[in-house]
Every structure is written in structure tokens, then in C-alpha cells.
């Protein structure tokens, strides 16, 4: 085991430990606590990266299978077992990712008995289950090779070709069906990504990603275990990848041109930039690099080109399932750090399993032989403390395992400390003011600190009515949110539900409504009961002109700015700061949506 492997494993265990902490919160507190998902963005990083990206990453299995077995390219036989292992673990990781993302993960098996063949996701679910089984059977010989089950081993080897062909066919279906998945969303997906050819595009890009992933993975393992990379095989694969990338680029451009949407790519919008960034990373740069023979033959060259390709195609999946929908939903979803931790944690866990299998089973014979030799040197000895030199003596494997455990435990504790235990809510717009404290309005986004006590001091208690302008002039304990029930939307001041509850359900209708006429227009006037509350002692508001209260944002602006404007202008004060937005708004307010903006305008 090389030093590089040990350090890498330590880091992977660290991330796995963090993820374990977040896992606990995910399954005890719900999706809302560890994700930034919302009703406008119900799919986030876990679907885009773990599921969509994971399935595409694992495409190397069927692509290499096709090249080596179906097309009889014997040179690539070395790549088959690592590629199938990646695919097997990749699909297992997708399944694990789904367990995190599904709201009711204990129903994950439901597609087996509840069928809806009209759903692309149903098709994907079945293909993934089938393909996972096929991959397991394809890989089983590796586990059996050095055991006594030689009969089963030989049978499975004989079945290898039919299994590979079956695997290719099933992969074709679900790789393209992941594109079909998005066909139902013409309303959400930006036209640079939305095309009736999405299934075909997804299939072709999966082949490209599979190829660059095999190159990437092969060069990383070579680096980790300090082996000579199989440069000849890698440059051959790079040649295939270049062909695939060129085809993908032409396909995508022709598709845009054919649909008359090519102009959108040059519109300079966020989507256009995103499109070129994605195409540059995934296709253009790797393609140009792969076309240079010198790069194709150099280890660093193929590594850089393939890693760019991997990142670029993953970005394509993330774009299609999220970023390219922002223009429609106009909400800015950014994953919480806990989402990243889970995504990376799943990758780390399966990378550890990958390394374990590489080291204990004949996936790549050189690695296994090296490890076996190393293991024979290391007898299992309990570590002991050598007093003279003041160091712990013991075998290397045991020592590194202690480091892994420590990394895992430390990360777990760290994660449990840092992770959020409460869901991410746009909490009640207003906090109650208790005596001399500061109100926080609109927590946690667009927080405005309102120094309540300070205002009371300056204006005097008699002037509460300047701000508390409603039917409760003397009242200082009522939160603004009681009437301004929504931060942004106007709400009706009259709270029918609360009156019903207070007066005693249906029995009490007659106390306000004439019999048989449950309409608002003919009901009793507010002042008939609330005369005392509505006394017009202050000058600000004496009567209700509108039946609705403005949203809190508008209301607050109306009251505060009105006053601040005068104070700022007043030559005696000379405080222009009072009328700067940033005086109150310490953090930027999120982008308003069209409806909100419109409602604000209508409020004046």
C-alpha cells in the first residue's frame, strides 16, 4: 500500500464520517432540514449529481464491454473489469443516493409491484434494477476466480457475452430514458436544453462520459498505486472519446440549429453563458486536447482532458435537472453544505469499497499481486508502545486503520456539531419585541434589524401610534405578522377564521351575519363590536380605506421610509444615512418574483 493510497483513504474516511453525521439528521428530521429544496425546486443536487450524474458516470461499463467484447478489441480487455466494477458500484451509489432523496425511502421497492409504464421514471427504475443484477453477474467471476467455486465461475464466464449484450441494451434504454424524463417539462427547462431529441442526446453524452470516466479512473488508479499507466490503451480510448465528443458536439449544434434556437446561445444571458461553459468543459476543450497526438500519449494530458470531460458532463446533468430551470421558476436554489457532504460522502464510501475490492480481488492483477506481497510482509501484530524510543510499534495496516477510524469518528462528531437540526424556513416575518430589544424582520433572508427600544426612547411611549397604526393604537405587544400575515402578499385584515374560532363556530354566524345571508357585504361593521379598539386617538390612521393590509414589506417601507425621509431632509438632523437602504438592510433581499413585483407596484 503506497503512501498516496493511505492519505487518500484517510481523506475519504473523513468525508464519510461527515456524511454519516448528516445521515442521522436526514433520517430523523426530514428532507427540509438538510436540503435547500423547496416547492419551486423539488429536485436538487442529489437528483442532478447523484442520480442523473451517477447513472451517466457508470456508463463506462457498457461502453468498454461493447468495445472489448462485441467489437473484439482485445487491447481493451484490461479495462473491462475496472469499468464493470465502476459501473456496479456507480449504480449501487445511485440506489443509495435515491434512498436519501426519496421522501418515503422505505417505499423504494414499489415500482416492482405498482406499475405505470407511461412514466419514464418507472422505466428507469426497472432498467436500473435489471442492470444492477446484470452487472453483479458480470462481476461475480472476479470474486469467484480464486475460490473453490470453479464450476460456477466457468459457467458465468461462458455467460459473459450474452450478459454484456443484455447490459448494453438495458443501458441504451435507461440512459436515454433519463433524457425522456425531462421531456415532460417544456414549461421549466430552457430551450437551449429542451429538445425532443433529449433521449438521443443523453445516450450519446453517456457514451462520451463513460469513455472519459474510464480514462480518468484508470489514470487515477495508476497514480494512486504508483504503476505505469497503460498509455497505449488510454490513448486508444482517447481516440474513441474524441470521435464520440465530435459527434456529440455536432449533434447538439445541429439540433439547436434545426429548432431555430441557435440564436439563444449567443444572447448573452445567464443560460447562454452556462451553455457555453458546459459545452466548453464537457466537449470543446477535451475534444481539442484529445485531437493533439502528443496529449493523447501523455499521462498528464489524458488525465486533464478526461477530468474536464467528467466535470463538464456532470454539469450537463445538473444543468438539465436544475440550473437551466431557474429562468422559469425564478428561484435561486443553492444546495446547503449538508447536501454536498452527502453527495461527496456517497462517492467517498463507494471509492473506499472500490479500493478494497481492487486490493483483495483480481480486478487488475498487478495491483492485487502487489497488495498480496505487501500483506504477506505484514503479520498481524498488536501495536505496543516502545518506551525507549517513545513510539508505537506495530504493523502498518493496523496503524493506518487506526488513523481511518479516528478520522471517521472526528468527522462524525464535527458533523453532528455543525449540522443544522432545524429546517430552513423563511421564519415568521417578525419576531416579537420584548421590552428593550431589537426586532428582526424577515429572518433569515433579508434580515432587517429594527432597534425598537431606540425608537421608543426617541419618540416617547405616547407616540406608539405613529408606527402601530392599526386598530390597536395603544398596543405594543402585537407582532406585525398578526395582520401582515405574509411578508410579501397583501392579506385581508379581517381574520374570519379567528373570529369563527373565538365566537364559537357555526353557531355564532348570526352574531355578525343576518340570518341566511353569510356574505361579507351584509355583515356587521367592525366598529359595532370594536368601537373601543378603533378609537381614533392618533392622527395616522383613522379609518379603513382598504379591506386588505399590505404585505409586511410594503407596510414597513411605507411607515419607516416616510418618517426617515423627513428626518434625513431635516436640516437640523443632517442625516442622509437614514434614507439609505443599507442602513436597515444588512443582507441583500432575495430577488423578487414577477408576481411580487407586480403587487408591489399596485401598492404604489
Amino acid at each position: 500500500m503506497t503512501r498516496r493510497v493511505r492519505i487518500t483513504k484517510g481523506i475519504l474516511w473523513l468525508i464519510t464520517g461527515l456524511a454519516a453525521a448528516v445521515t442521522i439528521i436526514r433520517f430523523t428530521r426530514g428532507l427540509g432540514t438538510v436540503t435547500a429544496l423547496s416547492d419551486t425546486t423539488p429536485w436538487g443536487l442529489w437528483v442532478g449529481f447523484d442520480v442523473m450524474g451517477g447513472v451517466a458516470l457508470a456508463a463506462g461499463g457498457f461502453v468498454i464491454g461493447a468495445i472489448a467484447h462485441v467489437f473484439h478489441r482485445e487491447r481493451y480487455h484490461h479495462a473491462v473489469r475496472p469499468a464493470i466494477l465502476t459501473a456496479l458500484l456507480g449504480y449501487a451509489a445511485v440506489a443509495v443516493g435515491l434512498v436519501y432523496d426519496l421522501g418515503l425511502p422505505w417505499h423504494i421497492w414499489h415500482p416492482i409491484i405498482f406499475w405505470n409504464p407511461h412514466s419514464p421514471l418507472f422505466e428507469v427504475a426497472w432498467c436500473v434494477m435489471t442492470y444492477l443484477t446484470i452487472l453483479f453477474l458480470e462481476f461475480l467471476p472476479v470474486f469467484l476466480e480464486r475460490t473453490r467455486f470453479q464450476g460456477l465461475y466457468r459457467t458465468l464466464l461462458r455467460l459473459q457475452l450474452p450478459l454484456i449484450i443484455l447490459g448494453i441494451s438495458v443501458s441504451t434504454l435507461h440512459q436515454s430514458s433519463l433524457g425522456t424524463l425531462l421531456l415532460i417539462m417544456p414549461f421549466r427547462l430552457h430551450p437551449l436544453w429542451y429538445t425532443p431529441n433529449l433521449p438521443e442526446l443523453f445516450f450519446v453524452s453517456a457514451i462520451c462520459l463513460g469513455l472519459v470516466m474510464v480514462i480518468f479512473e484508470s489514470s487515477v488508479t495508476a497514480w494512486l498505486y504508483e504503476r505505469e499507466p497503460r498509455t497505449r490503451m488510454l490513448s486508444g480510448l482517447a481516440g474513441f472519446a474524441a470521435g464520440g465528443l465530435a459527434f456529440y458536439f455536432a449533434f447538439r449544434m445541429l439540433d439547436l440549429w434545426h429548432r431555430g434556437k441557435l440564436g439563444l446561445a449567443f444572447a448573452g444571458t445567464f443560460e447562454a453563458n452556462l451553455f457555453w461553459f458546459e459545452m466548453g468543459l464537457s466537449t470543446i476543450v477535451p475534444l481539442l486536447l484529445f485531437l493533439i497526438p502528443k496529449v493523447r500519449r501523455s499521462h498528464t494530458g489524458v488525465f486533464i482532458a478526461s477530468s474536464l470531460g467528467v466535470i463538464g458532463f456532470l454539469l450537463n446533468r445538473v444543468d438539465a435537472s436544475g440550473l437551466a430551470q431557474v429562468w422559469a421558476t425564478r428561484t435561486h436554489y443553492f444546495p446547503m453544505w449538508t447536501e454536498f457532504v452527502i453527495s461527496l460522502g456517497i462517492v467517498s464510501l463507494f471509492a473506499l469499497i472500490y479500493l478494497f475490492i481492487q486490493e483483495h480481488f483480481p480486478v487488475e492483477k498487478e495491483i492485487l499481486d502487489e497488495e498480496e506481497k505487501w500483506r504477506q510482509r505484514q503479520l498481524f501484530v498488536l501495536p505496543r508502545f516502545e518506551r525507549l524510543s517513545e513510539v508505537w510499534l506495530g504493523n502498518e495496516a493496523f496503524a493506518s486503520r487506526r488513523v481511518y477510524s479516528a478520522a471517521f469518528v472526528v468527522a462524525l462528531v464535527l458533523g453532528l456539531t455543525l449540522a443544522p437540526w432545524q429546517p430552513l424556513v423563511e421564519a415568521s416575518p417578525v419576531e416579537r419585541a420584548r421590552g428593550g430589544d431589537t426586532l428582526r424582520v424577515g429572518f433569515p433572508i433579508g434580515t432587517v434589524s429594527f432597534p425598537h427600544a431606540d425608537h421608543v426612547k426617541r419618540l416617547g411611549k405616547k407616540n406608539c401610534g405613529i408606527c402601530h397604526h392599526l386598530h390597536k393604537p395603544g398596543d405594543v405587544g402585537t407582532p406585525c405578522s398578526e395582520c401582515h400575515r405574509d411578508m410579501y402578499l397583501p392579506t385581508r385584515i379581517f381574520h374570519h377564521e379567528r373570529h369563527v374560532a373565538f365566537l364559537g363556530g357555526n353557531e355564532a354566524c348570526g352574531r355578525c351575519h343576518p340570518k341566511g345571508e353569510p356574505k361579507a357585504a351584509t355583515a356587521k361593521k367592525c366598529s359595532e363590536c370594536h368601537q373601543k379598539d378603533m378609537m381614533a386617538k392618533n392622527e395616522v390612521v383613522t379609518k379603513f380605506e382598504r379591506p386588505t393590509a399590505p404585505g409586511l414589506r410594503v407596510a414597513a417601507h411605507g411607515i419607516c421610509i416616510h418618517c426617515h425621509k423627513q428626518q434625513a431632509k431635516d436640516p437640523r438632523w443632517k442625516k442622509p444615512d437614514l434614507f439609505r437602504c443599507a442602513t436597515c438592510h444588512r443582507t441583500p433581499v432575495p430577488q423578487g418574483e414577477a408576481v411580487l413585483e407586480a403587487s408591489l407596484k399596485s401598492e404604489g
Partner: protein
Amino acid sequence: MIKAPCILNDVTRCIGCEECVAACKKINGLPQEDPPPRVGHSSDGLSATRWTSIVRRPGGVSVRKQCRHCLEPACVSVCPVGALQKTPEGPVIYDKSICMGCRYCMMACPYGIPHYQWNTVNPSIRKCILCYHKLKSGEIDTPACVTACPKEATTFGSRDEMLAEARRRLKAEPKKYIQHIWGEHEVGGTSVLYISNVDLGFLAWQDPKFLGTTALPGRTWSALRKVPYEFIGMAASMTAVWWIIDRRMRLEREGGDEPPAASEGGSDGGDEQ
């Protein structure tokens, strides 16, 4: 229960009193106070605890939003397990005992109707079910929101009746209304219709005008129905390629005859598949 139940919303009559919202909450047992909204919540006021809402528009216009109960619902077609069902009568209903929680329905709905209970470990999809169970059992004749409306801005009947009524109103006061019935053809037709004096394109993620009137499920089905042929075609072509190359290589190894003509199958150009 009547066949093809349908709601007609007349935007010009709505005063935005939210009696429908209160009635909906009551009959469905939803909490009267909405819990604090999540960051990134929808701006139309709908939430897991509010299945219908009033969207305020400039000029004092109030538009009620709720599930459209599409004639060919996208949410039903994409649900992998069939937890969302289009009932024979028309309303689209939900069965939690089947649902996996994949939230594909929320992505597929062009109007952003299904909402999710994010802050629980046992969440469901929540949306208007047109009071299906109570209508079916005969407990009520009209959905609670329609009963509650003091201005008859929202009316209930069979789809044909409602279409006829909408046309009658458009004809009777042609100056008052935009001559269009929203929901008659949008996304293949819906069971909630609107007539209005303002454009209602904002109710969907994109104005349906630009995307045609075809139902959404057809878009995925046109790809999905090819699946069996793709499977067979791929398996057959892969087997054929293998057989041809294998035969050619065997013949070469035997060193006997010339390789057969169909030897291009294994050339470098074939790496796409």
C-alpha cells in the same frame, strides 16, 4: 357524483375575500395558520397547508389558484408507481400508501400545483383533490370552495355546462372579458376554467400560448413507446456485430478463405454504439 366535474372561475367577479381558502382548509382538515414558509417557496401563496390561494394582480385583480385537474394530467403520467390517479369521474387524487416521494409530479406540473411536506420524516404530496371523496360519498354536492364563495366568482358543474356558461358570459359582455377561456385547450384541456379581464398566462411557469395546446404526456410517450423496439434492435445489432467480427477473425486465424464482405462492422467508425 356528476361526470366530468368542473370549476369555472370568473376573475372579474372575485373580490379576493379568501373565503374559499378558509373553506378549503376547513373541509380538508388543514391548519388555519400556515407554518412559516421555506426559503424559495412559491410566490402564489400555495403550500402544503393551502391548496387554493388568491393571487393578487395589479389593478386590484384577484385570481384564485388551485389544481386544474387536467384532462390528461402530466403528474399522473409521470408518477412511477401510480400514486397519483385520474379518477374515472375526473378529479386527480393521491394515495400516500403507494407514493415513493420522488417528487417527479412537482417537476412535471406546468402550474406548480403539487406541494410537499418538507419538514417531516414522513412527507406526502399535498394538493387540491376537488373534494373527491366527499363528493363521491354524497356528503356535499359542490366543492367547499365553491360553496363558500359569496360572489359566485367560482361555480361548479359538468365541464360542458361550464364551457357553455363561460361562452354565454363572454358573449353577453364582450367588452368586459378577454375573449378566451383559459383551460379549454391549454395543456390538452383542464377541469378548472377561467374567464378574465386580464391575461392569465402567469398562472403557469411559462405562458401556455407559446407551447401549444397539446397534452404534456404525449411528449414523453412518443419516446417511451419505442422502448421495446430499441431494446430488441440494440440486442440484435450487437449480436450481429459480434457474430460478424468473430467469424471474420476465426477465418483469419484459420488462414483459409478471404474474409467475407461484411467486415466493416468492426471498423473504428462503429464506436458510437
